[in-house]
């Protein structure tokens, strides 16, 4: 009996005698941030973390330069929503401060959380000395890359919001409410900070990528210099340089956030930076791209070569594209949004190709005539009869389907028109047919046409397709076979035009300005600016004035970089976007199958773009949380 009792007491002790360690279940090596910098390999992983946000910026549907450029319209009445439509809908007047589309300040509405990306860069810089096995050369390069990224994220925010908060050092997690309520910094302070960071990075970045198979896409000196050129050009541009619309705009403490007066010196700084970037790029072997047919294409006429040169300057693989300064590693997703149905198999498989991206008539009309001047200035072209019907013939054999009736506006245009735009009756080299005498072409009129609207989900609402964004080898027929490419952020052609622009702003028309525009025009198969205008323009002296030449450069840049997510930004910094979006965006009457009815412009979007839309709204919640922030003007 007694022994039984003893056993029970023992059991009680065992049960109840709580081992002190019972609740200490976490082992010592649970991963914390310290482990991210234990050695070189881990630190490299963190460097890639810093890059990751940058690579996410490849999504053009979240890029205001793409979605608000008026170049592409995305229908907003689809039943399914494969893309985030927030960016495309900003020009419909749907932007709100309550819940902003493309919110890169917080991350949301398609936007990336860029302040988080900046915090990651700061973590990298704070900890970079920890890995013992990280050599000094490599460390220097990584620090330079991280600084570049930190500068670029600040620049991306600056481009959208103007005066932003600068986060040079991370605040601790337990920072007080007062500490975390940061203020917006004046535009000049922001630009100076970005440029200073870029200069620090440029000093230590490698001139080129040695191991392309492994490192292509990492930042080089010429990339950083080109970005610096763009940053300074943006800062010199009218939106930020003495913009009277923002005059006297202050924060709560009276700090003036935008420079009061335009400073011409900023253009000089920008021009110098462009020149330096061009010099560095050319020193590294970059040059304008020209298409050379592969062995399996035996005969190719010059006019098609020109078209392919222009298409491929964008869609060629990076390592084979001699003019590509910078692209993101992630591929461009969305060729299926750009290619019309050209075969009956494609119609049967229309599910795999929604072809939503619609180009408005105004963008198609931006391209020059084959004489190299705007269609409304060409004294040979017949602007007022451009909607008259015309049938394809031998002269236009490689551009318009022979015997197919379309309109005059589709004839006698520059090669860039045919490279950029897919249109009713337009020829399409590639897409599975590499025989120039047996090319596919677009038939877009009415529901029964191959490329015509099939239902709400499968239609192109204007009748124009952004052909340039599809690699010519991409096939949409029985299924969809992609040939991937990366959307350029900067091409040498763009840098040339940036240089021409800044030079013209500094000193007006000079031979050097013409030289750099003409490099781009020559590659497109056009005469030089002066020659073209003097021979064919109704305004032959236009290139001789600073204002006239500015217009020419702006249009040239919009044409050359069409659909590349550039003009949305350019038009903002030029303060021209409001004018561009003040006219209705139109397409053809897509449900009509007779040419005479089809070619009647229909308004697809009546854009709403006010003065306030030049800068993005800061989400109103952020201003409640941090009352040191002020909302952007007019929001």
């Amino acid at each position, binding site marked *: 009996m007694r022994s039984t009792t003893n056993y*029970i007491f023992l059991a009680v002790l065992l049960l109840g005698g709580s081992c002190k360690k019972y609740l200490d279940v976490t082992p010592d090596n649970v991963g914390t941030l310290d482990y991210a910098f234990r050695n070189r390999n881990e630190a490299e992983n963190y460097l890639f973390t810093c890059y990751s946000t940058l690579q996410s910026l490849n999504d053009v549907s979240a890029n205001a330069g793409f979605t608000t450029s008026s170049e592409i319209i995305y229908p907003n009445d689809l039943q399914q929503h494969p893309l985030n439509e927030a960016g495309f809908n900003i020009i419909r007047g749907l932007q709100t401060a309550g819940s902003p589309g493309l919110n890169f300040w917080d991350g949301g509405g398609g936007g990336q959380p860029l302040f988080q990306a900046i915090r990651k860069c700061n973590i990298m810089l704070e900890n970079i000395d920890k890995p013992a096995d990280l050599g000094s050369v490599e460390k220097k390069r990584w620090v330079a890359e991280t600084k570049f990224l930190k500068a670029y994220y600040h620049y991306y925010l600056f481009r959208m919001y103007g005066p932003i908060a600068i986060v040079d050092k991370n605040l601790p997690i337990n920072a007080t409410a007062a500490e975390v309520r940061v203020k917006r910094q004046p535009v000049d302070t922001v630009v100076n900070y970005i440029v200073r960071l870029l200069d620090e990075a440029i000093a230590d970045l490698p001139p080129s990528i040695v191991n392309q198979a492994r490192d292509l896409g990492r930042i080089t000196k010429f990339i950083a210099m080109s970005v610096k050129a763009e940053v300074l050009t943006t800062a010199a541009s009218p939106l930020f340089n003495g913009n009277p619309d923002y005059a006297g705009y202050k924060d709560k403490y009276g700090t003036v956030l935008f420079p009061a007066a335009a400073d011409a010196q900023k253009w000089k700084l920008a021009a110098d930076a462009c020149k330096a970037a061009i010099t560095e790029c050319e020193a590294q072997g970059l040059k304008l791209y020209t298409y050379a047919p592969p062995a399996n294409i035996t005969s190719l006429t010059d006019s098609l070569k020109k078209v392919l040169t222009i298409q491929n300057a964008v869609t060629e693989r990076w390592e084979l594209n001699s003019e590509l300064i910078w692209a993101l590693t992630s591929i461009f997703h969305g060729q299926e949004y750009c290619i019309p149905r050209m075969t009956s198999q494609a119609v049967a498989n229309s599910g795999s190709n929604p072809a939503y991206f619609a180009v408005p008539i105004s963008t198609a009309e931006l391209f020059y005539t084959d004489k190299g001047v705007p269609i409304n200035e060409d004294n040979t072209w017949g602007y007022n009869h451009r909607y008259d019907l015309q049938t394809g013939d031998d002269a236009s054999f490689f551009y318009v389907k022979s015997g197919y009736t379309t309109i005059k506006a589709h004839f006698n245009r520059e090669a860039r028109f045919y490279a950029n735009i897919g249109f009713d009756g337009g020829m399409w080299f590639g897409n599975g047919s590499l025989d120039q005498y047996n090319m596919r072409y677009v038939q877009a009129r009415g529901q029964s046409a191959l490329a015509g609207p099939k239902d709400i989900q499968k239609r192109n609402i204007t009748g124009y397709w952004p052909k340039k964004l599809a690699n010519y080898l991409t096939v949409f027929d029985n299924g969809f076979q992609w040939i991937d490419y990366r959307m350029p952020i900067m091409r040498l052609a763009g840098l040339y035009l940036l240089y021409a622009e800044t030079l013209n702003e500094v000193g007006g028309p000079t031979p050097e300005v013409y030289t750099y525009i003409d490099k781009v025009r020559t590659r497109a198969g056009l005469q030089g600016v002066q020659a073209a205008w003097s021979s064919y323009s109704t305004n032959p002296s236009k290139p001789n004035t600073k204002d006239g030449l500015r217009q020419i450069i702006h249009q040239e840049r919009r044409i050359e970089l069409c659909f590349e997510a550039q003009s949305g930004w350019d038009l903002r910094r030029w303060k021209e976007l409001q004018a561009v979006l003040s006219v209705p965006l139109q397409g053809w009457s897509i449900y009509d199958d007779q040419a005479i009815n089809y070619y009647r412009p229909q308004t697809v979007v009546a854009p709403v773009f006010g003065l306030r839309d030049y800068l993005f709204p800061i989400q109103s919640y952020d201003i409640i949380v941090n009352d040191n922030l002020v909302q952007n003007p007019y929001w």
Partner: protein
Amino acid sequence: MNKKIKQTGTLLPVLILRLFTLVFLLIIGGKVFSQETPSTGAKVTVTGVITDSAGRKIDGASITPEGKKKTGTTSDAFGRFIIDVPSGTRLIISYVGFSEQSIVATAERKEFTIVMKILEIKPAEEVVVTAYGKKQRKEAIVGSVTSIKPEDLKIPASNLTNALAGQAAGIIAYQSSGQPGQDNASFFIRGVTTFGYKRDPLILIDNVELSTNDLARLQVDDIASFSILKDASATALYGARGANGVILVSTKEGKMGKAKINFRLENSSSQSAKTLQLTDPITYMNLYNEATLTRDPTQPLPFNPDRITNVQATINNAPGSNKYVYPAVDWLGMLFKNRTSTQRGDVSVSGGGGVARYYVAGSYNVDNGILRRDAANNNNNNVKFENYQLRSNVNISLTKSTELVVRLSGNFSEYNGPLTADGGFSTDLYSMATHASPVLFPAYYPADSANLKTQHILFGSVAGNNFNADKDYVAYSNYNNPYALLLRGHKNSSESRMSAQLELNQNFSSLVDGLSFHGIFNTNRYSYFQSNSGYRPFYYNVGSYDKKTNAYTVNWLNQVPNSATEYLEYTPGATNINTFIYLQGSLDYAKRFGDHFISSTAIVTRQQTVYANATSLVNSLPYRNLGLAGRATYSFKSRYFLEFNFGYNGSERFSAAHRYGFFPTIGASYVLSEESFWDPLRTVLTRAKIRASHGLVGNDAIGSQRFFYLSDVNLNNGGSTSASFGTNGGYSRNGVRINNYPNEDVTWETSKQTNLALELTVLKNLNIVAEIYKNHRYNILQARTYIPSTSGQEATIYANLGAADSKGIDLSADYKQTFHNGLWLSGRGNLTLATNKYAYVEEPKYAESWRYFTGQKINRGYGYIAERLFVDDAEAQSSPTQIFSTNGAAPKGGDIKYRDLNHDGKIDVLDLTFMGFPSVPELVYGFGLSAGFKNFDLSAFFQGQARVSFFIDPTRVSPFVPSPDWWVTGNTQVLKAFADDHWSENNQNLYALYPRLGTTNSNISNNIQQSSWWLRSGSFMRLKSMEVGYTLPRSLLKRMKIDNCRFYFNGLNLITWSAFKLWDPELGGNGFAYPIQKVFNVGVNVNL
């Protein structure tokens, strides 16, 4: 990285080993003292027969000499006993359920016939099961404990939780789906008392913490007691885990006596309690046309008059009509039967003798789904949900003072059903059927001439743009063909929980009078796995049709390689395995000193759960709790009661500094009716008692983060943090993601609770309990709101900031009256009113007073205030702008007009405000009446809820627009009520049921906002159950050698009264979900 993971759990196997050694020793020890010699004296041999008042022999009654509990005997199967005792010994005869009797045996009187009288239990002597399974006399209860009679939970459904609503004062319960196996009710004790992470109560079955699913599967016939612990005093022993209340269930144990067999068989037929009224295909097409043109008159007509005529011909089955070219499909009818059957059976055997008593039960339930079968298909895809259970509770008296209890149970479920996307049984098929257009394509085509040799079914569809066709397992087109998805494959799952529990009860009265020990060891193992197999359906559409010959050809739509297959593909499904170990030891001391009675308890517990399929290192670490709890009570003359409790608990989730929490409570009660001054009142108020308690209880389930004091960093995250470089992006690294920052300061959520109660017995037969309570919950974990995004933190930072207040009333009453002619009547009713509010929420400084959560009721919905519909486009344009989301279009006439609360000329988040009642009902009630006469009995139970609101979910019920659920694609069907009453150019009713139609989410984005337009009252009352029973007459039973046999017919959810008519209001906002079922059931219950 070279340190090993600490082995902190190694002590456990040693412990278990020792425990078993202990048991072994006890068994040996037990033999020793059963042979103790009796006291000396002149012996007599006493014999006797024990019967009940009806003359039936009692088997297993115990006969013990007074004061010598360790000796004695029991009666045999014929009620006979024989015992040798010294002359003059008083023998106590006892048997469970009967009053004790005593006889004095002398040499003269040594043969007895003893007739036992059935024990009449007075309310004050009722036993209530309280924390840790302690049985307490009801009279001595100080805390708030409600017991539900298990038989009240017996409803004709396979889910116990569905019976909870309205059964006990203090439970707020509601059921929002009727899908078999997925139809657990949501339930809260005294409503929702926090806005933190875990809001539902702790569930303990035989003292072991288990899940809602385990409770749901429990067989009512196996339940011995069902208690709900509501206030601080009752739950205090659970310390850090009891703040949301505790549900305590114990299973039956064997009783001494011959084997008793109880079996029950039920067969039910269930059907939707309320069916959705959808409009006909012709109206569907006309409205689709209307919806398209009313938004954009330039759009081509989706259904031209010719098409509508042809579909009408199909419906009329007119000569020359073609139901494949012009289909009119009743998807719901195609997929679902009107009713289905369910069978349930359980059997239990219990009995035993002095040494061991046993209760062994088994049950089998089979729930059949309501899906149809198709002859063309060899997969049987109808839902079949089978559940088997085996339970064995064995009590072994090792010695007179030592009892060992072994509880073994296994719960096994097998499921077979169609391959569905949402992991559910058939809800998603129901959603698909209600979101599929009736006229776009038929379910399938008979093989046309080109397809005569085709082996597969030619399912109908329309070419879609799902460009992930080769990857996506579920949808291949813009439009789901629900029939194809029903037939294409099946999903099997198997679930089991095996539980082994050993309990040891030791009475130490030999050492210290009144001291006893109780120990529990439990382990259970849970496993779940699932497998899926299916083919990818071939979709076709009509290619050409010749009206003259009525011949058509079909085109194969999904020709992309691998998007259609004839063979089954196998995909392994989710697996879930975990193990649980629980140890409990308690010492009890109870002793009466004259009028004074004291008792005390000390309990030590520890438990551990380990998950096999953890997704990260920290989640693979054991989940542990350690607790020490104590209770001390004092009572005087069974009139004044005082009680003190505490729980001292540790959770591994907090930093060492905050790991343990101390939760004390105090309670007292006073039985007024024991006082002499009560005497004049006693004829009316038979009994009266007041009680009160106050104290703290905690909650450690406050967030999803595993360890609050550690950062959670994924050093190999992938996805959004990865980057790649190289010519083909060939060199990539996964990157680092910070999921959580470390926070040493996070600690328990605590509830300060006060409870006051009055118990009354009126005129002997009417018992009333009324309680009021007030809870203040604080330290609710909440996100810090002052940190702006410019700080760039990847994870939200949390702190114990929030507070919530709740208060309410629980009322219950029961009444029973038996009349001389054998008629008996009983009634019972209860009511729970639970209200709550956010007492403190860290919020930014909103300019608009109506946006603050602080002060609002928890779970109250918010939205825009809808004024009416816009009169016309001009009014819509001149009103404050209402553009929602960046995908939205501007409203037109007939769209909902919202109120601009802050008068800033636009409707946006600043105009959102709180409205209606909370989505969890504040008031739940139930009342029932039963009556019996001779062999018949009849009962009815009504249940209802009030002070509850819900929003009709316009994103799921709006006609034509696709559902937001990714797996449901297609065009939503039209509710008849919407077809009959919506705004249109011809019916410009500004208060129509449904606003202006549209066919896409973007053009009706204005109308699908949460707003008062869609707000409805969720109040209802239903005849929850009704039962008629007939017990076979005793004379007949006797001949059949059956103790009892009862046949019954009952029904569930029979009639519902509600102001809301579109669907069953208990479903809430989404009427297009699997409806709540109405059940008719016949059953038989036999006791042998």
